């Protein structure tokens, strides 16, 4: 392994150098000109679909009467559970969600029927004309007691229970000089993508269906859709089109099953696009977590014991809940710190509270919020500086992870912490009595890449030269705004020396290479690995063919902008080469497994690890309790930066998403009903709420590291929440443990403290 050596630290800035110009699609995106799947409104013969959703959180379905709806103007087809050709179930981990409910609805928004009509208004009118008879059932709304309530599925409402233990935590706790115990709660956050769930299903004329949709894993969706539609997989294809945001919320199937069934029924393309109300009600959310943590240390601040008891509310169906639980548990072990004994238990339960599944951070950021808050609480009780307490317990780069597994960092955690403690945001607060109370807080987090824990995780890619002379790079990943195409282009240009106009990136075709899901911060790692496999040999072939055509020695040729160069002069351009090369001579394909620790039979946790320390500066209004985050400074250690605008965008964007979860975003339920129905009630941060941010990179990746590129799509959300609540405490003396921060509760606590002093 590597040894610790001084790290290089740099601050990222957007500097669009000559080759760094953003692709055209960036401006199109900003202008609203880029076509998303739900913009495909000019398809010949397009019908509009709509879905009838349950208005009950939990009920028996006694009757679904579609007779009137079928006779309504413009209606082409009305389908219910009886019309599902194949399996009436889907779900990435557990196939427990019906395409259309048969005899029972389990959440407000469960799908019951769907209509295809000439216009969206006609489809909605027909939906309104379907008569449903419900017999209400008791609503399971309290996650903590869900497993003792009537089961929503076979067995009990306890979908999964996991524990991770090390040492004897009871004994260790008894030996602690200082122990803190607290309960933390996190909200049901909504992804809030700008393009709500949607897309179109097109019959291919031969009994098959093509989906052009916003999704995150076309290949996996093909498998599920083929089973639902009772079609061989070869007859189902998915084009994961550039979509207006996903963040995990389009990982599971959304409108595809209903659109596919209607397209097969009518023989016409069918578009379904949820409006914001429907998306709020029926769409995926982040798992709310209630967790109690008991953490202890000796008198000098060495962590000795850590106990965690968590309940995650997955809602009516499993979706990726079991995997979220696993990632939560992993992060709840406090992976950055050495703790001899821990006992982490987590329960994942079904309730009638909507649907929860994948969401950037994936349970990890909820755990890190609690873990880092515990460390602050211990430091406070010890009278020790929180940075000092962390430093004492940080793992070194050579140590294994918290579960004993090998891990691979790109910098020493202590280096990242030191950089964070040197942040210019550490300023004294405003004097007592000032209107705006100011404070700075720090939190530290680690995050791994890949699906982890030995789950099957692999993917492939393809490289070719098009007849037009462009270097085509194909991956199965979806572009949902993260600009992976930009990162891929940059990687190819860096490796080949060609220009960005020479590169054509093709993404998200289920008929193309399967790269695995666009999730778990895995794409950049896979792209780098696969390009490293394909490019050297492909470049050799390119040079060899050029040598044959020009009579120059291959070793003297070098690819550059537009073609191959000899001593600085363009000898032959790619187009000519493409025209003269034998077909398929310039096609390379590769596949690989996602990197896991060497020598592990069943991999534990995640091998490729990243770190982030976030320092937050806040202002709290003494008059109202409202909180403004003015600055965020992130110190990241996530390998080499291949595409600075992408890196910056991901860290800053994820941090604002975390800020939203911390301060305003929540979708509360009452009796299983969502209490917010649109973005004027569900409050996401706007540009006016976004703080000034600075992103620093500690890149101490060894020259010969086989995995120098890491995926940073989720890193920015990891530590922002505990950093903000720590800053709030620095400003006000009040520690918030229930999110989002309630200005009212904060104000009352501030007043109580004022009254005391």
């Amino acid at each position, binding site marked *: 392994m590597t040894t610790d050596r001084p790290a290089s630290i740099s601050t990222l800035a957007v500097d669009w150098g000559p080759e760094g110009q953003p692709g055209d699609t960036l401006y199109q995106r900003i202008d609203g000109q880029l076509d998303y799947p739900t913009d495909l409104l000019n398809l010949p013969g397009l019908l509009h679909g709509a879905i009838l959703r349950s208005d009950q959180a939990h009920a028996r379905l006694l009757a679904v009467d579609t007779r009137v709806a079928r006779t309504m103007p413009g209606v082409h087809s009305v389908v219910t559970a009886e019309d599902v050709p194949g399996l009436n179930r889907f779900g990435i981990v557990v196939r427990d969600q019906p395409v259309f409910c048969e005899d029972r609805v389990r959440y407000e928004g469960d799908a019951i029927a769907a209509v295809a009509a000439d216009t969206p208004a006609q489809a909605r009118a027909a939906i309104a004309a379907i008569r449903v008879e419900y017999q209400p059932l008791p609503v399971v709304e309290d996650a903590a007691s869900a497993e003792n309530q009537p089961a929503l599925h076979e067995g009990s409402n306890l979908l999964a229970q996991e524990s991770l233990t090390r040492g004897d935590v009871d004994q260790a706790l008894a030996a602690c000089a200082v122990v803190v115990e607290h309960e933390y709660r996190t909200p049901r956050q909504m992804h809030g993508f700008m393009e709500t769930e949607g897309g179109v299903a097109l019959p291919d004329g031969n009994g098959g269906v093509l989906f052009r949709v916003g999704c995150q894993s076309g290949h996996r969706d093909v498998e599920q859709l083929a089973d639902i539609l009772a079609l061989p997989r070869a007859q189902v294809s998915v084009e994961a089109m550039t979509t207006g945001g996903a963040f995990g919320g389009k990982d599971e199937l959304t409108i595809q099953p209903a659109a596919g069934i209607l397209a097969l029924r009518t023989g016409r393309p069918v578009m379904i696009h949820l409006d914001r109300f429907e998306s709020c009600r029926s769409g995926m959310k982040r798992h709310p977590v209630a967790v109690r943590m008991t953490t202890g240390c000796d008198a000098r601040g060495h962590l000795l014991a850590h106990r965690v008891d968590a309940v995650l509310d997955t809602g009516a169906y499993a979706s990726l809940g079991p995997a979220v639980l696993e990632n939560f548990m992993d992060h709840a072990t406090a992976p950055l710190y050495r703790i001899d004994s821990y006992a982490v238990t987590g329960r994942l339960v079904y309730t009638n509270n909507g649907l929860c599944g994948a969401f950037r951070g994936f349970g990890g950021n909820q755990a890190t919020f609690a873990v880092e808050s515990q460390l602050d609480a211990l430091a406070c009780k010890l009278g020790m500086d929180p940075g000092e307490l962390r430093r004492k317990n940080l793992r070194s780069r050579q140590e294994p992870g918290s579960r004993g597994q090998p891990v691979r960092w790109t910098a020493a955690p202590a280096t990242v912490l030191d950089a964070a403690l040197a942040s210019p945001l550490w300023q004294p607060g405003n004097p007592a009595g000032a209107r705006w109370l100011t404070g700075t807080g720090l939190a530290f987090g680690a995050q791994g890449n890949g699906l982890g824990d030995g789950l099957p995780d692999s993917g492939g890619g393809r490289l070719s030269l098009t007849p037009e002379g462009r270097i085509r790079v194909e991956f199965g990943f979806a572009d949902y705004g993260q600009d992976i195409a930009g990162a891929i282009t940059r990687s190819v240009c860096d490796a080949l020396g060609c220009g960005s106009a020479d590169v054509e990136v093709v993404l998200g075709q289920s008929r193309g290479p399967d790269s695995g899901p666009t999730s778990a911060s895995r794409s950049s790692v896979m792209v780098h690995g696969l390009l490293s496999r394909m490019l050297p040999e492909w470049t050799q072939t390119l040079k060899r063919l050029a040598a044959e055509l020009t009579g120059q020695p291959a070793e003297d040729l070098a690819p550059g902008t537009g073609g191959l160069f000899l001593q600085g002069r363009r000898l032959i351009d790619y187009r000519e080469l493409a025209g003269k090369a034998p077909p398929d001579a310039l096609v390379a394909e590769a596949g690989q497994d996602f990197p896991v620790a060497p020598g592990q039979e069943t991999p534990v946790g995640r091998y490729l690890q990243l770190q982030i320390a976030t320092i937050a500066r806040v202002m709290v209004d*003494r*008059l109202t309790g409202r909180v403004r985050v003015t600055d965020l400074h992130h110190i990241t250690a996530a390998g080499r930066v291949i595409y600075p605008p992408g890196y910056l965008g991901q860290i800053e964007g994820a941090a604002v998403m975390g800020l939203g979860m911390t301060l*305003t975003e929540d979708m509360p339920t009452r009796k299983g009903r969502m209490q917010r129905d*649109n973005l004027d009630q569900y409050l996401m941060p706007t540009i006016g709420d976004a703080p000034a941010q600075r992103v620093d990179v500690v890149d101490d990746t060894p020259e010969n590291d086989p995995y120098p590129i890491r995926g940073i799509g989720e890193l920015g959300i990891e530590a922002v929440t505990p950093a903000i609540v720590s800053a709030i405490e620095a400003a006000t003396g009040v520690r918030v443990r229930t999110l989002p921060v309630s200005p009212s509760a904060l*104000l009352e606590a501030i007043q109580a403290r004022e009254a005391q002093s």
Partner: protein
Amino acid sequence: MQADPTQRDQIRVLRPATPREAVALAKTTGAPYIAGGSGLQPVWERNGSWPRQIVALNPGWPGFRGIEETGQGLRVGALTTLGELAQHPLIHRYLPCLPEFMDQVAGPGVRHLGTVGGNLCAGGDLSALFLALDAQVHRLSDDDPQEQCQPLEDYSAGDGTLMTALSIPDSRQWRIGLEKLGYRERFSPPRATVACVHDGQTMRRAVCGEGGPARLRSSETDQDTELTAGGWQDPALRLAIQRMLAFLQEDIARDH
């Protein structure tokens, strides 16, 4: 209001030629007035129920849009948009605190549509300031051939009367403080907006938001009771209102 679960594209938009005709149409049809629609439209959409017809107000009617000096202060047409209000040179002179405050009222798109009259009729952010300024409402009603003038405090929107304009006293020498608390800093209606106006002799205070718009008249010690009686049920919100008021009063006194 007559409402039907009809489609939004089936709404009949009545376009009266004159303000008088608007009042008569509203009376006979029971249809609501619509100005910028930015307050009404989201409510209809949320409820999934659209009115059969609406009475469109026309900013081209004389005196309905724009701001002018009257000698005693300003006259603001009811259909003046929030954006125009925020940028108007007369407002910068008479109410210099307002342009900056307007940055917290909705967003640019909504301010482009939303009107001063609509905001006041809906009890929006401007209500607190205009109440504390003792603004006068010019209104037309069906049973009165003359345009009448009455204090904003006594004006009740929704009874079919049409707000044509507002008169604001000359406040150039006055001290004014304004504070807004929303669930979010911007682009969100007020939970509570408070205004304090000192005209050199007396301090006038007003509040609007979740508890509705109101002038506040009690002493500091009775303020909590007054707010509770006025419909402000949330104790933490009452606390915030009182702290904002105390801060503004102190600020104004210090300036003096």
